[in-house]
């Protein structure tokens, strides 16, 4: 599979719209105090973040966090209740022939079941005045060339995802917005997608905002993450920084756990008691725990520092208790 993907260079389609200096300097994606309400339900709640050009960013949050709604507002499919959602310095709807500049693959998108994959792409290509050769090129790239003339109604979810990816790449855009692109892909397909998106961002200088509800799915390929929950921003930054921000903890197993917990609490540490002889401590160095145990003649069976895994960090950030 990976052999088929690589730089898409055969057909270069340049934006027809002029790019002003202001637009060039603007972030690829700008979300400013964005809010979307549906009656009493707040789907997106005063959300603000920006993605600078040339980066690949993960847009993370559990199902129902507001990712798809944010994407829909970014591309003008839904109107914000308040706030701004801009791509390349302007509202999507004001871009001239937008798919030449922004490619979007949305979870809410669909296909006519009786239309073939090639014809689905041809409809878009003809509307946007994109050469028809580009359609076959992309069908080959996402390995749908053998199924190009089959009705999409018979496609597996993975094939539909690849067709959606091909559609988003049709105009060779400088910004890609991908909503849960790994859904329905097998592990091989997910690996292919990772390499493909990394290549787009790092070799071709494109900006990619890719959403997922599984951190591990995107952690290996993104430069930074934006984590949201219940429509609100939890944190944004490089993956390492986000994980480090959560701090490290010290795991202890000791027959004198009760006494040690008292001493550590007096030192200002946060102590969580797992069972009779196990403690999980944060806010104190591992060396300090060892010294305290030695000075007070307390027996230790186990003393180790543990960092939260990416997934634990993600879960911790997006669990209800972590919501600000």
């Amino acid at each position: 599979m990976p052999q088929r993907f690589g730089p898409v260079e055969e057909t270069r389609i340049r934006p027809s719209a002029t790019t002003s200096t202001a637009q060039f300097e603007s972030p690829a994606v700008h979300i400013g105090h964005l809010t979307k309400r549906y009656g009493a339900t707040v789907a997106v709640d005063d959300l603000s973040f920006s993605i600078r050009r040339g980066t690949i960013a993960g847009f993370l949050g559990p199902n129902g966090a507001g990712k798809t709604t944010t994407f829909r507002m970014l591309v003008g499919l839904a109107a914000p209740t308040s706030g701004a959602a801009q791509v390349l310095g302007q509202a999507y709807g004001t871009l001239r022939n937008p798919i030449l500049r922004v490619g979007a693959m949305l979870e809410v998108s669909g296909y006519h079941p009786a239309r073939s994959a090639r014809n689905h792409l041809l409809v878009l290509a003809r509307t946007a005045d994109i050469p028809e050769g580009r359609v076959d090129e992309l069908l080959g790239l996402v390995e749908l060339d053998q199924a190009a003339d089959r009705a999409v109604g018979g496609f597996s979810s993975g094939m539909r995802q690849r067709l959606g990816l091909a559609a988003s790449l049709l105009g060779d855009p400088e910004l890609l917005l991908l909503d849960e692109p790994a859904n329905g892909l097998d592990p091989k397909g997910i690996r292919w997608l990772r390499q493909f998106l990394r290549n787009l961002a790092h070799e071709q200088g494109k900006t990619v905002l890719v959403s997922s509800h599984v951190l591990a799915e995107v952690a290996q390929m993104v430069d930074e993450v934006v984590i949201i929950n219940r429509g609100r921003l939890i944190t944004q930054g490089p993956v390492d920084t986000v994980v480090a921000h959560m701090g490290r903890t010290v795991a202890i197993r000791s027959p004198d756990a009760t006494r040690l917990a008292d001493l550590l609490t007096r030192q200002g540490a946060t102590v969580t008691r797992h069972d009779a002889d196990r403690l999980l401590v944060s806010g104190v160095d591992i060396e300090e725990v060892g010294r305290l145990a030695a000075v007070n003649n307390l027996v230790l069976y186990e003393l180790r520092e543990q960092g939260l895994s990416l997934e634990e960090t993600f879960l911790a950030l997006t669990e209800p208790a972590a919501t600000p």
Partner: protein
Amino acid sequence: MIRLIGAELFKLRTTRMYLAFLAAATGLVVLVTAVHFLLGDDASLTIEGAANVIETEADLRSVLDVSGVAALFTLVLGATAVASEHRHRTIVSTFLVTPARGRVVAAKVVGYTVAGAVFGIVVEAAAVVVAVGWLAVTSNPIPFGTTIAAVLALTPIATGLAAGFGVGIGAAVPNQLGAVLAAIGWVMIVEQLFAGLVPQLAQWLPFTGAGAAITGLRPNVGILTGIGLFLAYLVALVAVGIQVTRRRDVA
């Protein structure tokens, strides 16, 4: 705009919907016309208002005017134009490529009007083949004249405009079943009720009035008046459809 209209016609060509409607309408017209001739003097199954024996141009005209049934098909076809995109969620990619939703609806109206006119030509041709073929085989004279020529020329206009009207309904009622029921309900129930209860008003309604006038079935409403009146209804409906389409969040 030309590209958009071309894309709409391409969408129609790449699914089976248009051909299925065309086959159904053509089959129905061929069947009814053939039965009309086969039954001869038996008036129980003949075309409403048509003479059993074709002797005059008016007799032949009554058999050949298939605009009513064909326009009902193109009306429903048009009603699915926007609604089926919502149903299959292809509206997402349509609006991603063309965020100006008013232009999308306008392109659909023009595209479906063209497709509806072609539809009318095919269905009308089928009726002509059966009627003229029957008369020729049975060695009857074919009373061809200007009123026949007018029906042949005006039927595609009626079916085309009905398709455009259907697009307007579908844009205003984006649910596919709702749009189809609204289109059929308007023509078959609402306008028929008006025709029965308030005939003076019915002659100015879109289908029993303006639509019928297009093919010369309203003696007191001219053909051009009928076309103008129908266009006025169509423009008003499409304006409503565009407003609904613009304001509605997608998916």
